[in-house]
């Protein structure tokens, strides 16, 4: 580590004393970092607001459909790759163990390394989620896929399998929406319109939270026998 540091101290450094390894005052950097943090957080907040506004009706419709499935005994399966797999796990945990509201059957399909490595090694990575959908899912269940590109092959294969089995399918995408946003296998797709993977994930989390909130609301109404 630090191998790239070894060429500092060139004889031309005196021409650009502020550019390279001679910099010694951290105060300026710390101020820049703090400014950068606030500006990125502001951009994240702007994108979150924009995303909630754009998908307001879609979240309402998806939440209502999910509530109906949960009320009828449906279960939710979430999946994604890399950081999105962890966000899928967080979303499953939100549905399964919320701080308040009704706990629902929700599970992340990226959680079991034995299953993932068995499928990835024996068959291929493209089927790591689809084969689990085959094994676990029943008509009436819910599949939720998270991706920042909207085009990961393993997610698309799993969503197609979920569609074949009569699941409700929900996708979270980014950039221009990718394959997920135009796929007939996806009932509800929420595309976060940004080029930053970080900002996309932060907005997906809030849209997912809103989806949970709407689902809880409709589930409560269903239980109380209120008109939908």
């Amino acid at each position, binding site marked *: 580590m630090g191998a790239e540091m070894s060429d500092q101290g060139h004889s031309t450094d005196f021409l650009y004393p502020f550019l390279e390894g*001679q910099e010694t005052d951290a105060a300026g950097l710390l101020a820049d970092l*703090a400014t*950068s943090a*606030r500006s990125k*957080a502001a951009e994240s907040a*702007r994108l979150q607001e924009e995303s909630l506004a754009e998908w307001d009706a879609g979240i309402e419709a998806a939440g209502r459909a999910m509530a109906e499935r949960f009320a009828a005994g449906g279960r939710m399966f979430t999946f994604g790759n890399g950081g999105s797999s962890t966000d899928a796990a*967080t*979303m499953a945990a939100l549905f399964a163990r919320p701080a308040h509201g009704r706990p629902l059957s929700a599970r992340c399909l990226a959680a079991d390394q034995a299953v993932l490595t068995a499928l990835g090694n024996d068959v291929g990575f493209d089927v790591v989620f689809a084969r689990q959908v085959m094994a676990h899912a029943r008509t009436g269940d819910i599949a939720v896929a998270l991706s920042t590109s909207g085009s990961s092959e393993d997610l698309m294969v799993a969503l197609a399998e979920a569609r074949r089995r009569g699941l409700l399918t929900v996708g979270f995408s980014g950039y221009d929406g990718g394959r997920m946003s135009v796929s007939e296998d996806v009932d509800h797709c929420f595309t976060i319109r940004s080029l930053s*993977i*970080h900002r996309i994930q932060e907005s997906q989390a809030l849209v997912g939270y809103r989806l949970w909130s709407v689902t809880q609301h409709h589930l409560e109404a269903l239980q109380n026998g209120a008109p939908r």
Partner: protein
Amino acid sequence: MTAVVGPQAGPVTMIDEELSADLAGAALALARRFHAGATLWVLSPQWEPHSHHVAVEFVHPVIVGKRALPAVALVAADLVAETRIAVRPGDVVLAVAGADQAQVLDVMRRAPAWGVETMWIGYGDRPAAGAASHVLWVPSDDPMVPATGRFVLMYHLLWELTHVCFEHPGLLTVPDDDCTDEVCITCSDEGRLGEVVAPPAEEYAGALVRTATGEEYVDVTVVGDVVPGDLVIVHAGAALTRLEDSPQVGQWGPR
């Protein structure tokens, strides 16, 4: 400033002036530790996916060309035992956890004996002053904070700012006169925190004690019987005091 319609109601500030300064300080500290060869160990007993997200963020950056940095999620049932054997002096431990998490509090109070720097992301009531080297606290007590992207934003920013620091190589080493950390024993003849590895093998022998500088035999005549895991203050080759076994208090004793 940064406002968004929060999950409950009303606009909230995601990163205020104070938190942005805390993040900046943590990022520079983390970059310096990585530069010196550190591994980042991540604990999130209540919300394990967050620890995995941090690990993959650093190991496999989403921005092509950024260097891969060693970060590991620790998810064992006994986090204190797992962290104890994982960390090496100079490493960094990051917790994403509430201030009431007993295992995290215990890891944090032992950290000086292991020679590691500590960071703590959370929300609600803040940990006691000094509980971690860097406290990055969301100014909200909404129990839904962990699921709304606030923590994700926080560690994304920590990653982004850490990589900015690598563009300033001159600032990646700590000048000697900046060294005020409790892990730097050369600056101070204060007692050092030690964790007992093994009690004395025989009467009048020393106990094997782990401190920030490694393992050493320490005279425990003053503190009496010790067992593995006991925390003691070591000075000049002897244990002067044994800390009470209470993870509910701050790093060095009662608040």
